């Protein structure tokens, strides 16, 4: 049935050309007596030219032949026969045939060229669209999606698949998403085109089109699509490598900064400890009891400071390596705050601490030890950057989604432009009195708070000083 249909579809234009010629014949017939042969010949050019223009060379030739015969039969005496009496008429007929065939061919080839040109233009504009789509994309998955979509639209495909051999697993992108052909593995694809990369085969494009297979120019276009895609994919890979290289550079730079900073920070308290202890051991140095006690206390304080610093460094490495284990359990925030204050007992002994904890605070899911560390770091910071007898305020309250804890000091505050940056690694606000520290404390806090899906922010206190707020999600 299909074959009959396609055959009749192909034959249709020929039939039309023939009919057209016949119609022209019978339109002119009534005027035969008044018309010169030249006129008739010229009129017949119409169906021939039109047939060639509209339906191509074949129908044009059919029309030419038909008009040749009809001209002879109806318009050259003797009418009603194919015989020719006038020798000039023979010439006319021959010239007519020659003319009409040439016209058909000319018009036919013109039409064909036009069609080819249009097709090429279509190809180019499709390619352009594809390139345009690719130019904005840097991620492999985006490129594959764009490719599948464009391929599907350009070729009117029922189903398109793009298969990529990527790491860690090969990727299969489909358009449309839901496979409309029951199982694409069962039905073989209409066309398959490899994505050939510089050094290896990247994958392939598979197309299913039930209506018709791809013609030669479509095959060509699909291959060009494949080449474009390979370029885009390889470019995406380069971008990824470049990013990675940049990250490594950045990471190296930070490591050097860290080493320099750490070296200094570790050695400073050690210097104090060594100095104090060696003074105590030195037989030449005369010390009274108060002096001895003072040196010992100093060494002890510096040892504490060193301990805290080492802790910070360990936290930092753990956060960086992503190996910080968060153990979330329901806790009383009052418990955490109390524990923090106990930990900083020594430093807080000369400082007024004001607690403002809302009544009936719900429990909050946190890792006790880590949040305690956050608070210790924040309060430690507050102590460093505020006068030795000024107060530290701690407030805890609850909103709709978060439990908010604020720590405020009455110190020198933070320049407004630095409020966001204080949480960056190694960031030290440029202040005249450097209170020591690697600048890690707050960035560790940020890391831990983020791991809790919470928020941390710094603002300046209206009366002077800094407020650091942490928000922990309730459930």
């Amino acid at each position, binding site marked *: 049935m299909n074959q009959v249909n396609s055959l009749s579809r192909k034959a249709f234009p020929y039939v039309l050309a023939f009919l057209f010629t016949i119609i022209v014949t019978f339109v002119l017939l009534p005027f035969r007596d008044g018309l010169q042969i030249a006129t008739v010949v010229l009129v017949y050019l119409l169906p021939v030219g039109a047939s060639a223009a509209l339906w191509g060379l074949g129908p044009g030739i059919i029309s030419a032949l038909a008009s040749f015969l009809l001209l002879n039969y109806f318009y050259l005496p003797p009418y009603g026969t194919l015989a020719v009496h006038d020798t000039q008429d023979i010439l006319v007929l021959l010239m007519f045939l020659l003319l009409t065939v040439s016209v058909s061919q000319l018009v036919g080839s013109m039409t064909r060229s036009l069609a080819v040109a249009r097709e090429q233009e279509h190809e180019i504009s499709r390619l352009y669209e594809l390139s345009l789509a690719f130019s904005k994309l840097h991620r492999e998955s985006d490129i594959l999606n764009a490719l599948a979509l464009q391929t599907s639209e350009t070729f009117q495909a029922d189903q398109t698949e793009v298969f990529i051999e990527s790491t860690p697993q090969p990727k299969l992108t489909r358009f449309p998403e839901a496979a409309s052909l029951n199982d694409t593995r069962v039905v073989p694809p209409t066309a398959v085109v490899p994505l050939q990369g510089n050094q290896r085969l990247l994958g392939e494009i598979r197309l299913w089109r039930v209506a018709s297979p791809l013609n030669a120019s479509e095959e060509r276009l699909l291959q060009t699509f494949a080449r474009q895609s390979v370029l885009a994919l390889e470019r995406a890979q380069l971008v990824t490598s470049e990013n990675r290289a940049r990250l490594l550079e950045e990471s190296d730079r930070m490591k050097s900064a860290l080493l320099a900073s750490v070296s200094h920070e570790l050695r400073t308290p050690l210097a104090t400890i060594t100095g104090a202890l060696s003074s105590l051991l030195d037989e030449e140095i005369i010390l009274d009891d108060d002096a001895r006690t003072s040196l010992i206390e100093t060494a002890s304080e510096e040892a504490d400071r060193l301990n805290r610093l080492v802790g910070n460094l360990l936290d930092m490495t753990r956060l960086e390596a992503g190996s910080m284990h968060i153990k979330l*359990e329901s*806790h*009383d925030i009052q418990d955490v705050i*109390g524990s923090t*204050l*106990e930990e900083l007992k020594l430093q807080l002994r000369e400082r007024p601490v004001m607690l403002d904890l809302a009544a009936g605070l719900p*429990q909050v899911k946190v890792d006790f*030890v880590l949040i305690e560390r956050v608070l210790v770091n924040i309060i430690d910071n507050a102590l460093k950057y505020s006068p030795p007898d000024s107060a530290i305020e701690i407030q805890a309250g609850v909103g709709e989604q978060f439990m908010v804890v604020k720590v405020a000091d009455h110190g020198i505050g933070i320049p407004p432009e630095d409020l966001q940056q204080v949480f960056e690694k190694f960031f030290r606000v440029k202040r005249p009195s450097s209170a020591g520290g690697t600048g890690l404390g707050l960035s560790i806090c940020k890391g831990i708070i983020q791991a809790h899906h919470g928020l941390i922010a710094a603002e300046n206190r209206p009366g002077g000083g800094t407020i650091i707020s942490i928000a922990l999600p309730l459930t």
Partner: protein
Amino acid sequence: MADSNIRVLIVDDERSIRRFLRTALGGQFLIFEAANGTDALAAAASDRPDVVILDLGLPDIDGIEVTRRLREWSQVPIIVVSVRDQEADKIAALDAGADDYLTKPFGVGELMARLRAALRRSSQTESEPIFTAGDLTVDLNLREVRSRGQEVSLTPTEYDLLKTLIKYAGKVLTHRQLLRTVWGEAYESDTHILQVNISNLRQKIESDPARPVHIVTEPGVGYRLKIG
């Protein structure tokens, strides 16, 4: 106090730590040393210590394993020593039978407090029905609790919790141990209910519940009732 009769076994692979401990404690106690797990188990049997200070980071046998093996035949008080951030190890050791823990670096004050608590008799109720610490007094016979001179009314659960803490006064109790003792095995992971009761208890017996001096939090591990 005739402390010099008390025998302390120090187990740590670091020579400097052993030296420090011997120096700090040698004046008051009789000191024995072991540098690894195998020697520790042998020394526990031959030297019969009254208390063991056990480092968890031993080279041959895991400190927790040493605790377990020791507990198979001995009830000697064990204080485990570990570094920060090894809460899981501390809890495991306590669950395996250790009595208390110390975090390196620690000061001698903490060490002495733990030692004293570990050496105390654990059967409080028979020998001393009245527990006193600062402004807190608990009469276990009369079930009477007084804080800052005033009598305090506790729910039965709160009282049980306080009683358990008193029984092991000075020593740390893990969340799990407290939950199991007061609520039963089914509740052993329900930290929420423990938190609530501790919070309520603190509200009632602490003069500043936000900065408790009696029921102290051991971060990540459990709670401790302070003595003296």
